[in-house]
């Protein structure tokens, strides 16, 4: 084992395998970015502003559950936010697929709803948070914001998918006496799945922003509230750990969606 690589390694010494090269470049860039961040903040900003070193120092304490006095509990906040996000994503996905399919297949539904869906999609939903506060309990308001945030992009994407369905698919199905539900759920839905996943990716971003903003405006237990609280009590290092958790959450849901695309829809390739 030890003798073989030595002889083989010689010609390879000049060219590292591209995969390792890539990893090396990425790690090096990461280190450079962190050093830049550290140096710039230390040089230019007041002492309480978080830098990589202070964040790294706070990380084990926060992960062990030790937050500064008065600050909301860390893991409780994570749990609350994550649960709300997944609940909202589930509601938004199911509702978005159903409404999107209906709008894509029935011209009447399309004309009735198109304007409303587009208007809600365009507007920043967080403008609705103070209003929702007047209607329902804070945790319900957050769930409503999060679900709406997930619903709109998925609905519009499924709508596009159901409309771009090749007409001859439906014609062939009709020749074989397919009923409307066969066309909707047997043809239009599978054909729109790539669109569902594209909408899902957009939804993840909106859900995370919606949940955190709602938590801040409504003073509701969760990462959004924790971030604002700790930044106002000058515990920025703790705040940044929460930001890291949110970033990790966003990235991992997106990666999961990518993996799902490759696994479940092997026929789908990015056309761009």
């Amino acid at each position, binding site marked *: 084992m030890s003798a073989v690589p030595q002889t083989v390694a010689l010609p390879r010494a000049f060219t590292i395998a591209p995969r390792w090269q*890539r990893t090396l*470049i*990425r790690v*090096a*860039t*990461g280190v450079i*970015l962190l050093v830049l961040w550290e140096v710039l903040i230390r040089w230019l*900003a*007041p002492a*309480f*502003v*978080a830098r990589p070193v202070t964040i790294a120092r706070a990380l084990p304490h926060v992960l062990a559950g030790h937050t500064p006095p008065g600050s909301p509990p860390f893991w409780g906040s994570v749990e609350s936010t994550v649960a709300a996000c997944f609940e909202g994503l589930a509601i938004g996905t199911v509702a978005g697929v159903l409404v999107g399919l209906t709008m894509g*297949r*029935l*011209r*009447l539904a399309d*004309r*009735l*709803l*198109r*304007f*409303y869906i*587009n*208007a809600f*999609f*365009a*507007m*920043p939903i*967080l*403008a609705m948070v*103070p*209003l929702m*506060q*007047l*209607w329902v309990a804070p945790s319900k308001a957050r769930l409503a914001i999060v679900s709406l945030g997930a619903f709109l992009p998925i609905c519009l994407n499924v709508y596009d998918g159901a409309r771009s369905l090749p007409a001859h698919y439906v014609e062939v199905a009709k020749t074989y006496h397919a*009923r*409307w*539900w066969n066309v909707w759920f047997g043809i239009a839905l599978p054909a729109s799945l790539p669109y569902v996943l594209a909408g899902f990716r957009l939804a993840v*971003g909106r859900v*995370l*922003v919606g949940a*955190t*903003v709602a938590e*801040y*405006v409504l003073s509701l237990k969760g990462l*959004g509230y924790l*971030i*604002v609280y700790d*930044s*106002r009590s000058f515990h*920025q290092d703790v*705040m*940044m750990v929460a*930001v890291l958790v*949110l*970033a990790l959450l*966003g*990235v991992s849901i*997106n990666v999961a969606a990518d993996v799902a695309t490759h696994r479940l829809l092997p026929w789908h390739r990015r056309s*761009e």
Partner: protein
Amino acid sequence: MSAITPAAREPKPKMSVPHGVQGSLVSIGSLIVGAGLWELIGRHTQQSSFAPFSKTMGALWGMTKSGELPRAAESSLELFAVGLAIAIVLGFFLGLLLARIRVLRTGLEPYILMLYATPMFALIPYILSLFGFEFRAKVIVVAMFGIWPILINTMEGARSVNQDLLEVARSYRSSEPKLWRHVIIPYTLPYTMTGVRQGIARSLIGVIASEFLLAATGLGSLILLYGNRFDAAHVLAAVLFITLLATLLMAIGRAIENYFARWKAGV
């Protein structure tokens, strides 16, 4: 339901009303029904939590006449325009740079995607501590919300430049600046504009978020102010105005996107 589907599609040839007119009639009808429902619900709920359509319109008119709404809209639009402009310029040039320089792209791509997935809202307190809570900080927030789709789309676009085009340009001894001006940038712009359209929506979120969390100005402060007073009619009026504004801005974004993509239509 099964009876509706075929019925809705079959009588198409018999229709005498032109297709587009009929469609817009249904859409207008749905808006009228929506306003009616709004009025009806508003009349049967508490005035502090929801207001009928007519009252909301009254509040909208009142705020417009007093100059409150135009002032707020101007302040928010200024923030939006400056932030988005910075996002477009930076996003476009960084995207081109990353597309052409491979080391930079390989190195930075994971971090850019990570920032794209992070809810920018969470970073507002950090920006507050670095840049304060005045206009400058808010512009940075808006630009940070808007830049990522522009950057990523530009990068993807510039990377996918047709190799044939580049080879032809080179074989005619095109210089590097000319190559950029006549091939790479025109090819990339439609992609960038797709990003700009997404960036418009995100920047608007950034405007409202920064007005909520940093110095309260503009449309965001209107919502907060009347929300705290439990004045639902004025809050609804402000939300309605933001919705109309957002729809208009998105329509402009889509028009720009289509304009730049016109030569791509056949592909």
